[in-house]
């Protein structure tokens, strides 16, 4: 595929499916980083290295998730190669429609969300406020800074620290590292 076509495709994916793709991947990534696909990050990394002009791609973050999606898709369907022109919404539906009927997986997922909820309650007041106001109530960091009497940069720092704190509450995934 021509370079400009590829870029147009990625821009399109980002615009139409960005949030949905990220949400879906979050769920998949958590389990695949742990078990199914031990070398997922490695595989995505290698594909990033193969791109000659990553800087010309408008959003490398969207690209990152698109590549992760392709890798997962190949893994799930055991396809040797996937045509890049396949409509991505079809793929997402396809993968979403194969639910994890496994009760163990379901229970684990419930447990994870419960832990996240507890971790959220355990956050220091400023981190809690910045995280919930931004993610739940849609306040911008500027607005949060004004409300709490701190700078925008500090608000960003509190948000970043709050996220880190939440991640630490999850068991460390050790697959892929010694």
């Amino acid at each position: 595929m021509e370079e400009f076509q590829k870029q147009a495709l990625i821009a399109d994916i980002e615009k139409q499916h960005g949030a949905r793709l990220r949400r879906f991947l979050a769920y998949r990534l958590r389990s695949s980083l742990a078990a199914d696909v031990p070398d997922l990050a490695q595989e995505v990394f290698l594909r990033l290295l193969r791109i000659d002009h990553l800087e010309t791609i408008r959003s490398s973050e969207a690209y990152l998730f698109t590549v992760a999606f392709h890798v997962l898709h190949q893994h799930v369907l055991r396809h040797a190669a996937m045509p890049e022109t396949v409509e991505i919404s079809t793929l997402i539906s396809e993968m979403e429609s194969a639910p994890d009927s496994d009760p163990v997986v379901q229970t684990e997922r419930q447990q994870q969300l419960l832990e996240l909820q507890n971790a959220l309650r355990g956050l220091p007041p400023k981190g809690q406020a910045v995280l919930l106001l931004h993610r739940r109530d849609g306040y911008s960091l500027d607005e949060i800074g004004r409300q709490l009497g701190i700078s925008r940069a500090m608000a960003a720092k509190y948000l970043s620290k709050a996220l880190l704190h939440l991640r630490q509450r999850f068991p460390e995934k050790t697959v892929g590292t010694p």
Partner: protein
Amino acid sequence: MNQQIYEQASDWLVKHRDGGLDAQEKRAFDHWLRESPQHVRAYFEMSSVWEDLPSLDRSWNPSAEELIARARADDNVVPLSAPPAAVSSPLLSAHQQPPAAMISQAPASHSSPEAARSYRKAGLLSALAASIVMVCVCGGWLYSQRGVYNTAVGEQRSLTLADGSVVELNARTRIKVQYTEAERHIDLLEGQALFRVARNRVSPFVVSTGDTRVQAVGTAFDVYRAKAGTLVTVVEGKVAVSQPKSQVYLTAGEQVLVTPVEIAPPQRTNVAAATAWTRRSLVFDAAPLTEVVDEFNRYNARPLVIQDERLADFHVSGVFSSVEPTLLIRFLRRQPELVIEETDTEIRIKKKY
């Protein structure tokens, strides 16, 4: 995985979710992602946390006003990793039940406002004491970890130090940076690093591996703490390599192996090959298979294992990519006397006959 990497991932995620990146930030993010698979992994993990947040069933759902009020009341800088007991704000502690031990000492005039005040004061003090202990414990640990940088299997990173010197860390490497006015000291605890030293006549730049000291002024050199000893390769300028009892000087293009017993005579070497790892390639010139396997295993979570002693004198020559290990495996598969078996946890090398 390194906590620092998660911090970076989290910062990038916040930037992306709030207004996006400008051109310069985007370049930095691209660069960061392409530095290591660990970065990609950390970004995925942080992103999972972010995306999980809306799916929470909120049995506890404070209003925006409540959150803002509590955040404004909390003017302490709270240690991030402290347990909830230590992070509760003074405002909340004042309304909490006093600790059980205090109850037995409570005076009879329990209901007098003054007693109640001293009561709360004591509660506050003990909460304060607890958080000071917490800060000291965390602080002590943080202090011992200060200046320590490490890389995992398959990860390489580049650090710029306070004086402008640059350190490239190869995979599975750990260094401790200790700068004082008298000396810029780096402990190479494990692995391999290339140092590009900023010129400073007053404060020498010293890398140590146990008893071995490598000292330079304004130069570039590579130090590899290998099993057999410490291998020092000079890329530019001059360095002095010393042990408690001996010392040698090396110039550009020279390499020396320092073992616990002696400093071997310096030899001319192929500098490009010795520093090939910084360009993500591995160069072998009739290297024994055991050495190839050791090198390869620094970059791969699934290790190569030699399963036949007779392969000790099998030699390999060639240039391989350290980030695309499949090429090396393909090469080994093509060797008529070898059999390669892949399992989920390792790659076994056997002799065919």
